[in-house]
């Protein structure tokens, strides 16, 4: 059995209740474009464009809420809160 974890595989293997409002953002005034967030995000939700990190607009559907991006952001440009109560990722098996 070959196990792969492509982006499509990961999406199939997760359950998310899309958040009703934004809860994660990049403060582009502080962002230095270092790309740390893009390295640790396993859902490829960050890209670097014109020297700044850009968060995918579909993050509310595909974020594990692991907070890796927040922890590795040296200039503290990532504002990580949480989705509203009852929304966001759901771990069915746990």
């Amino acid at each position, binding site marked *: *059995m070959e196990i792969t974890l492509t982006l499509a*595989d990961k999406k199939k293997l997760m359950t998310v209740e899309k958040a009703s409002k934004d809860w994660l953002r990049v403060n582009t005034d502080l962002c230095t474009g270092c790309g740390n967030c893009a390295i640790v995000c396993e859902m490829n939700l960050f890209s670097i464009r014109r020297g700044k990190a850009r968060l995918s607009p579909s993050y509310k559907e595909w974020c594990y809420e*692991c*907070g890796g991006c927040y*922890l*590795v952001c040296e200039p503290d440009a990532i504002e990580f809160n*949480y989705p509203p109560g009852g929304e966001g990722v759901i771990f069915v*098996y*746990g």
Partner: protein
Amino acid sequence: MQKYDIVVVGGGPGGTLAAKTAAEKGMKVLVIERGKEIGDKIVSGAIVLPKMFRDFPFTRTMNLPRARIPRAGYFGWFEPPPSYETIYYTISATNPAQQEYPTQCVYMKEFVGFLADAAKAAGAEFRMATLVTDVLRKDGKITGVVTDKGGEIQSDIVIASDGVLSLMARKAGLRKKWDPWGVVNIPSLTFSAPEERIAEEELGGGVWTVIGAVANYCCIFKDGLHMGGANFPPGTLGSRVELRKGVVADYLKLLEPKPIKDMLKRLEAKPVEFSMHPLTWFDEMPKEIYTDGLMLVGDAAGVPEPFLASGIYEAMYSGRLAAEVAAEAIENGDTSKGFLKLYYDRLEASPVGQQFVGGKQVRAMFDLLLAGQGARETAELMRFMMALVWGAWSGTMYPASVTVPLMIPAFMNHLPIMGKVLGLYLPLVSPALAKPLSRLANELAGGMMKGLMTKGGE
């Protein structure tokens, strides 16, 4: 405004134990959990060890429908790809002392559900699907919480068990975030498998596989299994960023060695869920874990132990302790930082704090040994050391009446011997490794023992 004696933020192992303990002491307790159901936000199937059953007697009656008692623990060491040659392989039979309260592999969701039921039975209230967004303050002291459902809730004390990313720690001004060099991010896959296949499985238990600096832990349940990819400390988020490389590619390599592939095939295992979650892995117990009117417990307090970074027992223990101190503080009419220092002091003296004795040396050993990952010498040395560690780990539970708990003290007790054996081993290793290893050998055989005798010893 609603008023409680104690508000607990987060309904995981730390929060539920805090709530249960406080309710049993007659406190009016509210648990606020952001998930719709208990366990919605918790991952990583877990191996609960005898020490939990020993120190939390109410768990001895736990009978989770899908939990499983493993027949054995298993360690596999593999050469790095492409060879994946198995270089070490051991099965430790469950020893007699462990049979009293055998280790169990549990789905976290089911396990935390059990803990939450115990808290509810004791009288704790739960409010679900509610995010705590801020703390309430009066004269600088924390006096409650604000939720996203519009409510302010007052309490004499807030116990925050809201995980590695703890919003409460931020709002309370205790820290902005943990140092990424102290946090690993763990990928994990849950597989489903037919019960008959699992019943036939010989290994059937807690399985560890290691390649270089990355490791994989496995728990096998009645109807499935869980494979978590644990980086050893050199694989923290900090080092991942320095390597400019994510963790999942390394994690997948852990599933490739033949024994693992064969096991998944025998079990007819099918992936059903994937997750990422952060885990603190510190070499010292954090100090900033309490302030006026608030205490942090579990991962929010950074208490997972420094050897394998297991954190469930630690969350439960710190949760219970925080609730005990909270009840005393309320009784004394003093919920100040000065009084709550009692929580820190007791935690430091408890089995949780004692596990950090020698944490720095454990960390140094990991860093040093795994720095040369892929080197045959390193792998051979690791297998030897891990065999000792494995022995030490079983040893701590044997006999069960031994109160100096848990694996770290036992592991540390072996270090002087390991240091001596390392000295014998030195002539065999490559010159590049010989220098740092001889330094380690001297440290192990020398001064460290003093600290242990005064701090951890009887």
